[in-house]
């Protein structure tokens, strides 16, 4: 198959066919893409043969994913994880590398080859693990946090690994330039200069993230051209990736760093929204490429060796991870999904294999074997995970479940607040004072800047854009508040939520009763007319100043407000019939006036004799006479 379109059609078609099937079977998208890759790969349908090429290009999806993950992780949270990353992550990398090294030595490989294999095999697949954790919504769970810590350490470890490999080269073999990013353009400089460049590059990323990206995005967002914003987002990620490659660092790590720095910026959700489709497509492509690179003829010829090596490495890695999980006090089910989840060999290993081959450490045969083992392990572990989630864990969790339902009262739901003008900010302050941090979106860049300076966490974005609502977490949120002062926008928003987030409770600010009618007709039940409470409260104070007793007035005001809300529900039915509406309104107003007329409580509600002894006196008198 030649030509870009034909290629694109094959990939997309394979993904569209396989991924939904995999999802239906509860396997997650990663496995779906892998299978799609196998199907269109050289050993089944034979549509493509250059899996590796594509894989190297699609690795950029991993880079993007780390940028997006960084966006969700604020620096202070990263700092909190330092112990996890250093101690847990480092021990995993070192112990696994050492054990694999030992086993390879025992199998009769030279120490150079063994060390290279050990270091490569210590890495797990960031792409697979994080993608499935996200799909299962487990990033915040103990399993998710520990997995993330280990993966992050592994990403950091890529740097020293790529630095060590050239040292293993038997003198005399010519290196043919850096693969996989190591060395890059600065490899001809002396060591101290290279180090200087590396720190300079990291510093540059931090500085750009702090001071340059924000204003750039602000400038672009003022043009209100969406594609320009997307382009700028891409520029940031590609630019940092390139910079990292030049100094020989892992691009994924660089963009992750940039993401963390931008996590505090108001453009966080807008960036997520715009980059997410690119990440998804590239990652999908990457997984398909992995599937396509599995060399089935090699596996067929050496079935026993490759299968036993694959199973062996998975078991070994899982065992080490299990011990680590144990020491971190994970429960058994958590520990199983942690250790099995991370037990595959990762995508960075492809890079190190290629690099080691170029350096002449591996010959073609070893490299092919390792590639097959790695790709196979990446395919098998998602299957293990599905089995674990669907078959084993449900049984275990049933036993461990205890009755703690009552805790729900303490748990706080997730809230999204749209519009942060005076109305929204008062609301937001009240919520925050009670420990509820709403995700706030506003569409005015200047307003966002100003409020940020005041210490509010506000994000820039148009709340009526579906993808942005997704990024702000509307899928998991319980409540969406619209404090927007525009009936049209609110109507649009209500429709959008009804269609896409049927479980989201929508609470809407309405300007007056006419807006309220519109919303009621759309089926909104939580409507807040902005003037209602304030005007009644003011009325209460007026009457107090006129000498009425406070508590009586307070009760009447409560009744009045409730009455007004009830009346609204009746009046909405007569709205389109002009004449009837007017007469209805008239009678409603008469009722309201009677509430406040001379005899107060008694006349308003015939049943309200609260603390009223008149009737008792009357009855006593009639008994006497």
């Amino acid at each position, binding site marked *: 198959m030649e030509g870009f379109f034909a290629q694109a059609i094959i990939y997309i078609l394979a993904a569209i066919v396989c991924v939904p099937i995999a999802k239906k079977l509860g396997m997650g998208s990663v496995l779906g893409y892998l299978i799609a890759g196998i199907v269109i790969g050289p050993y089944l349908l034979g549509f493509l043969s250059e899996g590796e090429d594509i894989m190297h290009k699609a690795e950029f999806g991993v880079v993007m994913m780390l940028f997006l993950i960084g966006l969700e992780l604020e620096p202070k949270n990263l700092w909190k994880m330092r112990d996890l990353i250093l101690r847990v992550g480092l021990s995993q990398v070192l112990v696994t590398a050492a054990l694999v090294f030992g086993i390879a030595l025992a199998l009769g490989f030279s120490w150079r080859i063994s060390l290279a294999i050990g270091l490569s095999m210590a890495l797990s697949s960031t792409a697979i693990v994080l993608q499935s954790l996200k799909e299962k919504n487990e990033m915040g769970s103990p399993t998710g946090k520990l997995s993330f810590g280990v993966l992050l350490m592994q990403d950091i470890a890529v740097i020293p690994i790529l630095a060590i490999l050239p040292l293993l080269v038997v003198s005399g073999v010519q290196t043919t330039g850096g693969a996989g990013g190591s060395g890059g353009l600065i490899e001809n400089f002396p060591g101290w200069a290279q180090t200087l460049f590396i720190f300079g590059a990291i510093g540059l990323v931090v500085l750009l993230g702090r001071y340059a990206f924000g204003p750039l995005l602000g400038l672009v967002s003022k043009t209100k051209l969406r594609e320009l914003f997307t382009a700028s987002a891409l520029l940031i990620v590609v630019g940092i990736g390139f910079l990292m490659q030049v100094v020989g660092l892992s691009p994924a790590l660089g963009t992750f760093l940039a993401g963390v720095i931008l996590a505090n910026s108001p453009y966080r959700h807008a960036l997520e929204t715009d980059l997410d489709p690119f990440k998804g497509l590239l990652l999908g492509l990457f997984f398909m490429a992995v599937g396509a690179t599995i060399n089935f003829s090699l596996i067929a010829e050496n079935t026993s060796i490759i299968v036993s090596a694959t199973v062996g490495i998975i078991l070994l890695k899982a065992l080490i991870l299990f011990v680590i999980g144990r020491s971190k006090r994970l429960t058994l089910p958590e520990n199983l999904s942690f250790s099995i989840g991370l037990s595959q060999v990762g995508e960075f290993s492809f890079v190190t294999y290629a690099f080691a081959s170029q350096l002449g450490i591996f010959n073609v045969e070893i490299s092919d074997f390792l590639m097959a083992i790695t790709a196979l392990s990446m395919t098998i572990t998602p299957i293990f995970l599905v089995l674990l989630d669907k078959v084993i864990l449900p049984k275990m969790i049933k036993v461990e479940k205890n009755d703690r*339902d*009552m805790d729900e*009262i*303490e748990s706080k739901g997730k809230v999204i607040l749209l519009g942060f003008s005076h109305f929204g900010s008062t609301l937001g302050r009240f919520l925050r004072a009670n420990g509820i941090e709403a995700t706030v979106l506003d569409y005015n860049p200047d307003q966002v800047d100003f409020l940020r300076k005041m210490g509010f966490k506000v994000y820039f974005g148009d709340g009526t854009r579906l993808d942005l609502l997704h990024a702000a977490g509307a899928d998991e949120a319980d409540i969406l508040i619209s404090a927007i002062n525009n009936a049209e926008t609110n109507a649009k928003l209500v429709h959008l939520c009804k269609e896409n987030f049927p479980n989201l409770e929508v609470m809407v600010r309405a300007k007056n009763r006419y807006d309220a009618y519109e919303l009621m007709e759309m089926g909104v039940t939580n409507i807040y007319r902005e003037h209602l409470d304030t005007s009644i409260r003011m009325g209460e104070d007026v009457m107090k100043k006129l000498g009425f007793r406070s508590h009586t007035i307070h*009760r009447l005001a*409560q*009744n009045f407000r409730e009455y007004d809300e009830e009346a609204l529900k009746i009046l909405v039915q007569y709205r389109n019939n002009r004449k009837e509406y007017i007469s209805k309104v008239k009678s409603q107003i008469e009722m309201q006036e009677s509430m406040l007329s001379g005899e107060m409580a008694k006349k308003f509600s015939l*049943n*309200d*004799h*609260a*603390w009223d002894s008149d*009737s*008792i006196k009357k*009855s006593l008198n009639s008994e006497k006479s």
Partner: protein
Amino acid sequence: MRKVLVLFAHPKFEHSEANQVLIKAISDLEKVEIRDLYELYPDFNVKVQKEQGRLFESEVIIWQHPFYWYSCPPLLKQWIDLVLEFGWAYGPGGVYLKNKFIMNAITMGGSDTAYSHEGRNNYTVEEFLRPFEQTARLCGMKYLSPFTLKGTHRIGGEGLNQKAEEYKNLILQLRDSENLDSLNYIR
């Protein structure tokens, strides 16, 4: 099967483990309705007609509340003041509650010994509950001896679950058993 109405009043339910466990034990029982008064009327604006309607439909009524200063929390008193109206609950024509059963179910920090003539509270729980008893009597209701969960400051875990089970069984008995006159109530 009788209809049971639990009028529950606790101003800070989320912090009361004892009441959470008790309420949980009797939730989702058929024909047992729990009305969480502080949730329904945070503004103390008790809807009299609505409450009277619910009372009229029920045969057994429970006032479940913590024992604050030897009495109930203010919203339950507000409820009594407003709902048990002259001419409806008592007095001429006030016949709508006649022969219904009513009971206090209370939680208290103090122990059994504290609530005795020798203890530091000087009176028994029944004596403190006299106003409720007489309120019931004036309305022609049968006042059952109270269910009490004492020593909530110390009780926990198993002891609490056991009491909750006891409470549930009592409510089931009030709902199901043929003749309640055998149950101890103050005449």
